[in-house]
């Protein structure tokens, strides 16, 4: 880990994190302020007007009435996956392949820092920034709920939900990071880094359409947990562990390939 490089990376990419946090926090605020326990029945009734398949594909479930379930269903079913996914794609490309493609990686390597050290630092920033994003969103959600609907949010369950969502996003950013370390060419890396997560998200949505296609969800890391189940029981250790180890394996693979790579810079 190079502190100098970490400081530089924070300075150059911090704004991106702030923007995504601001957008998501705004959504969180709007959703929480729109919540009204008495209206839930009405909303559910209104939703019956829409095709059920469409609603399920969007990850919206209709049988929830408490605030935590409402957020899990309406926000964490799709938005909290799709928006951070865009963040993950952009950041993973910025961190490595764009520097290799432009040649500025030469300056990082023209210092007494090993390739491993540089990639560990950049990858750590990727993981930490996604972590920070969800911890901030968790804190913001708790604070907003407390201000608008005191006592209605099940904090512990909401934390579980944020942890699992954070971990799946860390897995996604490591997918992008791995391809960012593997290729010299920004457009090729971008294709894989964006294509795979987008395909996963689509599979997850298709898998939600009907019982018959539910197996599609199994193919996508996004489908390995159900936000609504997260808020009912204990911490889902198994799926959390799967995401964390997947991210760790990809991080390790990224370091491995980058250390041995030919860099035409």
């Amino acid at each position, binding site marked *: 880990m190079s502190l100098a490089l970490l400081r530089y990376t924070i300075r150059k990419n911090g704004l991106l994190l702030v923007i995504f946090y601001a957008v998501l926090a705004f959504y969180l605020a709007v959703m929480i302020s729109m919540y009204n326990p008495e209206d839930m029945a009405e909303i559910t009734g209104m939703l019956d007007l829409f095709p059920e398949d469409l609603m399920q594909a969007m990850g919206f479930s209709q049988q929830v009435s408490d605030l935590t379930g409402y957020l899990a269903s309406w926000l964490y079913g799709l938005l909290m996956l799709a928006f951070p996914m865009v963040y993950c794609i952009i950041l993973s490309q910025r961190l490595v392949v764009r520097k290799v493609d*432009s040649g500025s990686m030469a300056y990082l390597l*023209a*210092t*007494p*820092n090993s390739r491993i050290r540089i990639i560990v630092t950049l990858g750590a920033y990727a993981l930490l920034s996604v972590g920070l994003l969800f911890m901030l969103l968790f804190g913001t959600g708790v604070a907003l709920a407390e201000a608008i609907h005191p006592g209605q949010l099940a904090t512990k369950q909401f934390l579980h939900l944020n942890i699992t969502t954070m971990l799946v996003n860390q897995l996604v950013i490591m997918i992008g990071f791995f391809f960012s370390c593997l290729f010299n060419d920004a457009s090729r890396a971008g294709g894989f880094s964006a294509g795979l997560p987008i395909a996963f998200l689509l599979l997850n949505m298709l898998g939600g359409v009907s019982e018959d296609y539910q197996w599609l969800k199994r193919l996508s890391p996004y489908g390995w947990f159900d936000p609504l189940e997260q808020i009912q029981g204990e911490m889902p250790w198994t799926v959390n562990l799967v995401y964390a180890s997947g991210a760790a394996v990809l991080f390790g693979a990224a370091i491995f390939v980058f250390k041995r790579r030919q*860099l035409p810079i």
Partner: protein
Amino acid sequence: MIESHGLTLTYPGGKGVFELDFVIEDGKTTGYLGPNGAGKTTTIRALLGFMKPDRGRAAIDGLDCFADAPRIQRRLGTIPGEISFPEKMSGREFLRFMNDMRGERGKREAELLALFDLDPSGRIAKFSKGMKQKLGIVAAFMHDPQVLILDEPTSGLDPLMQSRFVALIRQERDRGKTILMSSHSFEEVDKTCDQVLIIREGRIIHEGSTEMLRRSRTRTYLLQAARPDAAASALTEAGFPARATDNGTIEVPVSGDAVDRFIKTVAALQVVDLNVKHQSLEEHFMRFYQQGGEEGSR
């Protein structure tokens, strides 16, 4: 000491460098000459540890260039051939960043900025080509490294700054630095280097002192004489392969050791105009290139 032993590094297209053998002793300045695409930058990528040789090895001060790159970088300064700075930085930020990454203060930073008359406060994206090159030079020299590997360091500099750069290289040479400097300008290498490596199509075709190279290089003179036919035959008789062009000018290639004889031959003619043809590096060193070609085809 910079060494390369049987260094071979090929790209998927089949280009690359092959069986490079050279040693640059401590305190020596070596010019690395060759036309575009000959393999200069590829050699430098191997020396900087960016690319791993397919065969052979490159070492600096006994350390393997690929495996020990971070340790080598501690004592190395480099200017990349195509400079690309980290994005969205001011020149000053960049220099501070390089100091931070190296974990040391660039003790010559202020001196070098003054020498090259560079104000690093603006954004690098707005810098001209020459300013970027100056910034690259400052970043390469500011921590006073013992070994310098420079890829076409004067490209984009105006003549005044080129001469300041030449003075800087001479100063560093006198301070005992080991320098490898690629170039396609013979003049620049002539002014700064003790020895020269010439590369062509990925193979080193000449290794020797700058002095020797100066004697063996070929210049083409453009002669206009009052009686072109007589002039051409006089030159041919004297052993120069003179060739009359369509516009009445006679082109005479003259090697470095025959200049005196050429001038004396020409002195007997009625000369209207005598000029030196502007030549590419390849034409300058035709003899080497031709020899190299023959060796290559053998």
